[in-house]
């Protein structure tokens, strides 16, 4: 029997996102949630100095998360997928490595977050799009 079976589980993506926000705050990031980017909404954008890190949070369906990450390549320096699964599949790690995306893992029971895989610097940024994104970050008033 699992020791932590009575602990409160991460029940939805909103809880996962707020758990991640706390984690990123501890790492001294400026954090924005629900950031619009080219008609799509990014769960979290974390800024430190001039670097922008985009994070898509998924409790299930990490493949959809990776699909959503694709659009961030035009604007993000680093791209992460965040999951709250019990285990991390080899297939997920392999796919992320191929794309240069990183992985943030939140334990669904202890809510502890860690960087399971570091993202590599994305070199596909298109500056005009990035400038639009920077401008829109300025107008977002949900900084956490």
């Amino acid at each position, binding site marked *: 029997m699992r020791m932590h079976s009575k602990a409160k589980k991460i029940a939805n993506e909103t809880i996962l996102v707020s758990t991640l926000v706390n984690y990123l705050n501890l790492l001294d990031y400026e954090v924005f949630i629900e950031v*619009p980017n*080219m008609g799509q909404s990014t769960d979290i954008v974390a800024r430190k100095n001039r670097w922008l890190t985009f994070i898509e949070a998924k409790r299930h369906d990490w493949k959809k998360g990776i699909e959503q990450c694709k659009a961030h390549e035009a604007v993000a320096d680093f791209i992460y997928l965040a999951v709250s699964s019990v285990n991390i599949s080899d297939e997920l790690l392999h796919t992320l490595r191929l794309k240069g995306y990183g992985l943030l893992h939140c334990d669904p029971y202890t809510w502890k977050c860690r960087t399971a895989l570091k993202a590599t610097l994305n070199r596909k940024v*298109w500056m*005009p799009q990035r400038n639009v994104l920077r401008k*829109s970050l300025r107008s977002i008033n949900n900084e956490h």
Partner: protein
Amino acid sequence: MSIDHWMMFSTFAEQDYFRFPKVNTYTGCIINANMASHAPAGLAAFLVEKTSGIRYIIDPLTHAFQHETSCITNSKNEVKKSIRELANNYGDPIMTKVGKKPLHPSDFADNPADLNTLAANCLQYQRTQLSEAILNNDSAKYLEGLELDTVKNPYSLVAPYFYMTRTTIDEWLPHNVEMAKIAVSKKENSEKVFAEVVIHQNILLSEDNVNRIIMSYEDTGVDGFLIWVDELDEHDSDIEILSRLLTLVRGLRNNGLKEVINLHGGYFSILAAGNAGRSALTGVSHGPEFGEHRAVVPVGGGIPISRYYIPELHNRIRYREARRILDDMGCLTSSEGFHTNVCNCETCQTVIEGKIDNFIKFGDFTAKNIPRGDGFVRRQFPTTDAKEICLKHYLERKVLEYKTAETKTKDELIAALSDSYAKYSQVMSLEEISHLKVWAKIFE
């Protein structure tokens, strides 16, 4: 032979595009009967003043009465006003059943004369609904004789029709054919009468059904056909479906004796109408932007997304995807490269203005907070300017496509598809570009 370029009229907000890039670009417009009954004066002004007398056809939309009643009722469960008005014009059995029960083929069994009444009323509605409004329009007094006749009368009348699937064709086809015959017998003067063939894609899976439709209509005496295959997206359809569509329209064309217009077609249909398809269609219609395929039962909603029409893919792609594809292809490094390799239409030249960074204008969004659950989520909507330039670029490319399909040789058209396939396969998945290969194969 030139390909007739028709456009579907959907909202008054789009009416200016019927004279874009210039007046007389389009052969005519298709107007849904519910729109004609909802705003006849507005449509008359559109036809006489906005477009300087564009030709029109009214789709009588009789299929609306055969679906679940929820398709034609509003949120208060009342039949929509324009549909009620149509039903009153069409008479029984539609008038008494509307909003209560869907119309069945058996509803005509008790009184076969009802088919006759429906056909007569339906034609009369199309003859008078907009022409009377046009006569009442102030600008119409400046039109005389033939010119007035051309403007005020529909290009062709359309016989009433019902939607057919593989499981309902046995019941509906005889009625549809009968109504087409009756409609022809009620033609006046030099009027044309078209039949409208509205089918589920599964009809195209059976060669027998396709041949049956062709043969059934052969002796009706109609002057032409409007075709509408439910939700047929030419980009996602396989060889079998598209080849069968060609068989159907070629059969209905009857060796070039009849006009056949695809109501919701894309570049595949345009090719079919041109040299590649040896004029299998006489015309193709599409909406100003969203109407290259359409479901018979309307589905609405969703957030509008900015899409850029990539000319060589003959497809509208979400801005974020289009940007990525063009960037991966190296087309977003200079304006010259962009105009050489992607598009040099007037809209693109005006938007880019010598600075490739301006491509971003096609994906200009504005953020709004949308209520969701207990709170709000931020969503982006394309700005009016972004929608407009995406649409203008699309319409310019469409005009070019019609021209290309009627002027280039079959070999040149097929080679262009194969070249695009090879070019874009470097940066796109096969699913996204396979339509180019499928279309080339069909026309080979």
